[in-house]
């Protein structure tokens, strides 16, 4: 057998997603119109937050999690989405003239990607001189030092907009609440469902779960990235289909537990 038993359904789902990607990404490349997307209020809130930061002469803070630089784990997609958001916020700050402080995750291997993205944002907007390397902050390993560092930064330098998108463990409850108490506008979200509650409770505008991926695509203003949301939708309908077929077959007596194990 060419395919390992126990991965048949995985492969079918992957093929569906690859086929959908091929179809919709080509459509996007040809410049064809893609279906419209519902609004995510938190995206507009980012712009509002940058504006408020400039008015109050306070910096914009961006954080992707104390452990948000995972490049070779199962959470790598979330890291890439956080980088997409960094790309957006650095451009926005460069364009509008706000100071951006990036609180980097402890994974040193992710630093080159983070610095390159932040710097690129300022270059793209034609303001490379505004980029300050010292505003990329590093705090060592663990949420303890990261939470303290970010809180200290809020207190000393002030907080206008506090945007937190990426992989979050137990590091966000302190940074989000402290930003809130110190008068910042909190916008953020994570794809790790277990921590979404902190964002839902502490943020003024939240990206609920999967919305961070959609937001990462929308802010890129790149049709290829945006087509990703439609591809996800295809995946969701395939999931509905599998659940429906599974329920029908189970109802007529088939052993779906065994069938799904293939």
């Amino acid at each position, binding site marked *: 057998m060419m395919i390992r038993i126990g991965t048949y359904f995985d492969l079918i789902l992957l093929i569906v997603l690859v086929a959908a990607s091929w179809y919709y990404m080509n459509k996007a490349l040809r410049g064809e119109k893609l279906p419209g997307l519902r609004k995510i209020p938190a995206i507009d809130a980012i712009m509002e937050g940058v504006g408020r930061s400039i008015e109050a002469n306070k910096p914009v803070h961006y954080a992707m999690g104390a452990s948000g630089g995972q490049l070779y784990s199962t959470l790598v997609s979330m890291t890439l989405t956080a980088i997409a958001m960094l790309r957006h916020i650095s451009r926005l700050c460069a364009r509008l003239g706000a100071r951006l402080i990036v609180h980097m995750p402890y994974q040193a291997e992710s630093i080159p990607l983070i610095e390159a993205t932040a710097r690129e944002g300022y270059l793209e907007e034609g303001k490379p001189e505004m980029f300050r390397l010292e505003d990329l902050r590093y705090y*060592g390993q663990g949420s303890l030092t990261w939470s303290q560092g970010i809180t200290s930064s809020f207190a000393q330098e002030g907080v206008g907009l506090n945007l937190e998108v990426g992989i979050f463990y137990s590091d966000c409850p302190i940074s989000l609440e402290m930003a*809130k108490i110190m008068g910042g506008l909190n916008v953020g979200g994570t794809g790790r469902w277990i921590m979404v509650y902190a964002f839902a409770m502490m943020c003024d505008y939240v990206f609920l779960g999967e919305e961070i991926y959609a937001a990462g695509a929308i802010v890129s203003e790149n049709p290829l990235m945006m087509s990703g949301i439609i591809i996800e939708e295809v995946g969701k309908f395939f999931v509905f289909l599998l659940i429906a077929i599974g329920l029908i077959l189970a109802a007529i007596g088939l052993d779906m537990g065994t069938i799904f194990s293939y």
Partner: protein
Amino acid sequence: MSFTRRELPTIILTACGVLMLLAFFTPFVAFTTIKGTLTAWTIVISATSTWLGFAYMSYAQYRMLQRNPVLTQKIYFVTPFAFFLLFLVVGVSFPGDVSSPQYLWLLSSIYQQVGATVYAVMFFTLASSAYRTFTVASTEAVALLLGGTIYMLRQIPLFPAFAPWLVPLGEWILLVPNVGGGRGAVICAALAALVVGIRTLWGREITMVEV
């Protein structure tokens, strides 16, 4: 130049990803071996790059001192380096290195204590956010309030002792509606992660291509 800066890294990325997938989907030992090798490589690559963090921290500290060269700032500047050296020296000077009693003493006296305290502080930050948001303002807020309060009380020994029904109810919340909602969330986030993954392997993820 563009090839070495853009196309070649993308080709390497795609090749690594595809090899890992072949190891997953096919039963061939060769791919499993390659997967093992690549996995070991990632650990070495990331471990080797560790000092980058130190470099960025040092630069930020130096610039902050430059901007504000007062005595307190000088103390704040010296402190991280002093503790860095302290940990480093203790960590390599005694037999057993990082497993030596001396290093473990440092870890348990400082690292463990601060770590535990930061988590402890979160009790308060979550409490104040609950005070703000756990209101009966809408159906959703009531669901949040009920789910949160009942499961919290279930975990506090006093309440189930007086109200035994809290145990089955708390577990029902955990195992039924929480699983239902959580499962939907997990599936959606997983689909989105897969789409990002496929796009990246395709060489179309701008975050990887543009920089």
